[in-house]
């Protein structure tokens, strides 16, 4: 007679038996488990701005006409080549004839036309419309040729096409990409256990070199201590950007792990309300810049040196100019500037801080630094939605700390209504000129002028670039350690 206990024991054995092949597979080392802090809300980068979406899907599931490589250079992706006509308006893209979507439909020029027209449709929620607004019209004369005509010369048009917002999607599957993404990339979407993990599988029909990994698992771990524990326990092989800088010495001491400190496009600034007195006086802003001891701030936040900036530009871009020496730490000079502006004894103001550690920890240090010249900044912590509403949208603030993680966003300083309200016609004219300058060397020179102008006017307190703390298993190769765009491309990742 079979008892209930026998049945249960049998079930247990069966469960154990199914475990064994899985364990054996893990030994083959063609899979990798990647830890990330935030989970993507959806898997469609054309539906929202969340960085986590791009980190998972761009260059893995989805591709654009062009791609950015790990050094920040534009390289061909779905377009194997492109040319710009002498009118500086007409781009001709040649598509890869052997590219296919994961549902086996071949890529066609009509998909490109569909994708870009969809991005500017009235009901589109694409977070970066600026990429597409210069487009006058799109033609698809044959399946592998796309001709895009612009309204005016736009220097960064092709650059924008490397962003997640400009991926090429198929009309048949676009509506379901939020939960079941179908792209053209080296990996296919396999499974998503919301809140815990997301799995990708190798796309064996990929047009380019086949990835070495058969499977990749993204795991979402928000607690900094839990991130460290998962790495040390071997539950994950990589953490793309660790939230626990204080654990770096401990992780570096572990011979199984490799820690790399890299750069990003995240300009972290003490943003100043330029439209509000007393900050509308350039001398007040310069005085603030003279007390911002970047090294002290970074050591307080991270415990190590990071890449410092003197203007709103990332050292990852070839046009970067080092302006960190513009306002050396000088209390006497800062006090003199304040006195000249009519505040010999300083003044009271508020410092509104969003939740990230760089803002909350950095805010304490900056308030202490400002107090040295009599500026008493009252700290007000805000949740991120409230920060967006009050500081970013209503511009109701004196000072705040925020990292601008979008690449090449110096153009925001030309927007009069942008939250720090710089409003300089000279700068606007310069950005306008940059936008129309197609020649790269000439454009980079102008970018240098723009950086100098922002530094001269001490628009904001320019602090540092957010570091990227990559921790990997010592024998895993090919992970991106810098973030010219915040991505985790896996096609070149392999075990040694």
């Amino acid at each position, binding site marked *: 007679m079979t008892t209930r206990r026998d049945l249960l024991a049998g*079930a*247990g054995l069966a*469960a*154990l038996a*199914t*475990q064994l092949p899985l364990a054996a597979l893990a030994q083959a080392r063609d899979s990798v488990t990647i830890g990330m802090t935030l*989970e993507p*809300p*959806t898997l469609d980068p054309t*539906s*929202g*701005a*969340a960085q986590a979406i791009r980190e998972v899907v761009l260059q893995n599931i989805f591709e654009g006409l062009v791609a950015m490589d790990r050094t920040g250079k534009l390289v061909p992706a779905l377009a194997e080549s492109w040319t710009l006509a002498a009118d500086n308006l007409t781009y001709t893209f040649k598509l890869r004839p052997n590219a296919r979507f994961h549902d086996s439909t071949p890529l066609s020029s009509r998909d490109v036309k569909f994708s870009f027209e969809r991005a500017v449709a*009235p*009901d*589109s*929620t*694409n*977070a*970066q*419309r*600026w990429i597409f607004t210069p487009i006058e019209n799109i033609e698809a004369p044959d399946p592998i040729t796309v001709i895009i005509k612009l309204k005016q010369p736009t220097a960064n048009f092709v650059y924008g096409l490397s962003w997640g917002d400009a991926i090429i999607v198929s009309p048949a599957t676009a509506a379901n990409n*939020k*939960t079941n993404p179908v792209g053209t990339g080296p990996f296919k979407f396999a499974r998503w*256990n*919301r*809140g*815990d*993990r997301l799995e990708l599988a190798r796309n064996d029909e990929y047009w380019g070199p086949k990835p070495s990994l058969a499977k990749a698992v993204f*795991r*979402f*771990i*928000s*607690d900094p*201590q*839990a991130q460290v*524990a*998962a790495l*040390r*326990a*071997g*539950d994950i092989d990589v953490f793309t950007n660790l939230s626990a800088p204080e654990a770096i010495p401990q992780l570096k001491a572990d011979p199984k792990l490799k820690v790399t400190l890299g750069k990003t496009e995240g300009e972290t600034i003490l943003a100043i309300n330029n439209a509000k007195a007393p900050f509308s006086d350039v001398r007040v802003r310069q005085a603030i810049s003279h007390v911002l001891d970047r090294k002290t701030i970074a050591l307080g936040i991270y415990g190590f040196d990071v890449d410092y900036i003197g203007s709103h530009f990332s050292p990852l871009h070839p046009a970067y100019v080092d302006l960190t020496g513009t306002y050396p730490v000088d209390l006497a000079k800062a006090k003199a500037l304040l006195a000249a502006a009519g505040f010999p004894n300083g003044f009271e103001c508020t410092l509104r801080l969003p*939740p990230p550690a760089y803002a909350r920890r950095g805010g304490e240090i900056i308030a202490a630094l400002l107090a040295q010249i009599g500026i008493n900044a009252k700290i007000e912590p805000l*949740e*991120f*939605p*409230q920060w*967006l*509403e*009050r500081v*970013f*949208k209503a511009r109701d603030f004196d000072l705040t700390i925020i990292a*601008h993680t*979008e690449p090449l*966003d110096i153009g*925001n300083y030309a927007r009069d209504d942008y939250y720090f309200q710089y409003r300089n016609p000279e700068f606007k004219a310069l950005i306008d000129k940059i936008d129309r300058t197609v020649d790269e060397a000439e454009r980079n020179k102008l970018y240098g002028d723009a950086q100098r102008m922002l530094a001269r006017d001490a628009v904001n307190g320019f602090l540092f670039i957010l570091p990227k703390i990559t921790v990997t298993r010592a024998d895993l190769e090919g992970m991106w350690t810098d973030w010219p765009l915040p991505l985790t491309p896996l096609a070149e990742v392999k075990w040694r």
Partner: protein
Amino acid sequence: MMGYLLRRLLAFALTLLGAAIVIFLVLEILPGDPAAVTLGLNAAPEALAALRAEMGLDQPALLRFFSWLGGLVSGDLGLSYTYRVPVTQLIGERMVVTLPLASMAILLASAIGIPLGALAAANHNRAGDAAVMVFAQAGLAIPNFWFGLLLVLVFAVGAGWLPAGGFPGWQAGFWPALRSLLLPAVALALPQAAILARVTRSAMLETMQEDYVRTARAKGVSRRRTMLRHVLRNALIPVVTVLGLQFSVLLAGAIIIENVFALPGLGRLVFQSIAQHDLIVVKDLVMLFSALVVFINFAIDLLYGLIDPRLRQAS
């Protein structure tokens, strides 16, 4: 009896309606636009307007309240702002983590706390009692997230017996799933066991003073039998009350523990949806927790009747 049940049900519904009004109003006053959170710092006004329309945020507040309430009654909890999938699906996926976790914790806490409390009462003012009280003090004083980290250091990082966090899903098999719930359940259970031990001990000490206990002993019933049949059973009423309250505390405590162990449960969902301003999920979850608490209290009332026949007859 029917009248009593009906009255209780009406009170149940009114409590929930009150909760719904409060929750809706609080979240309405809260500043912050979910569309702005989704689209970030570069979004064009047209894109924001399109998203607000897609989320139904362009409707007047009163209309949104009634359509939400109507949805709650018919079991349609709406579409998550961030994930863009039905909230019922999200809750369903998370429930299969949090409910087993809370149940394991409550079982563990009872299995440890009640016997320890009974042991302490039976050895009142002796070494055993003192040892249990020290354990209870420590259990109450140690924050469970810290205890959780300690468990991870010892059993996951050090010994490598159990995963440091995460949840492979029940589809990965019963044992792997259970393994990943073990450490968090222990971390959740410890402070609860401590409370249970203290409550059991003091309830039993009080019951031991009762006349019927002396009578039982005078009749010649053994001490052991008196303790189990008369003292422990009569002391169970406050213990069961605390147990019921603990279930609600465990669901809430799961918010912290699920974050420490990166478990995709309801607590983590609450945390994430608040951080991402996914107000519709916040509303639905707070409603769900309110309903659970009200329901558990109701169930505890019924349990009293089972434990104490006198209460059964009185009602």
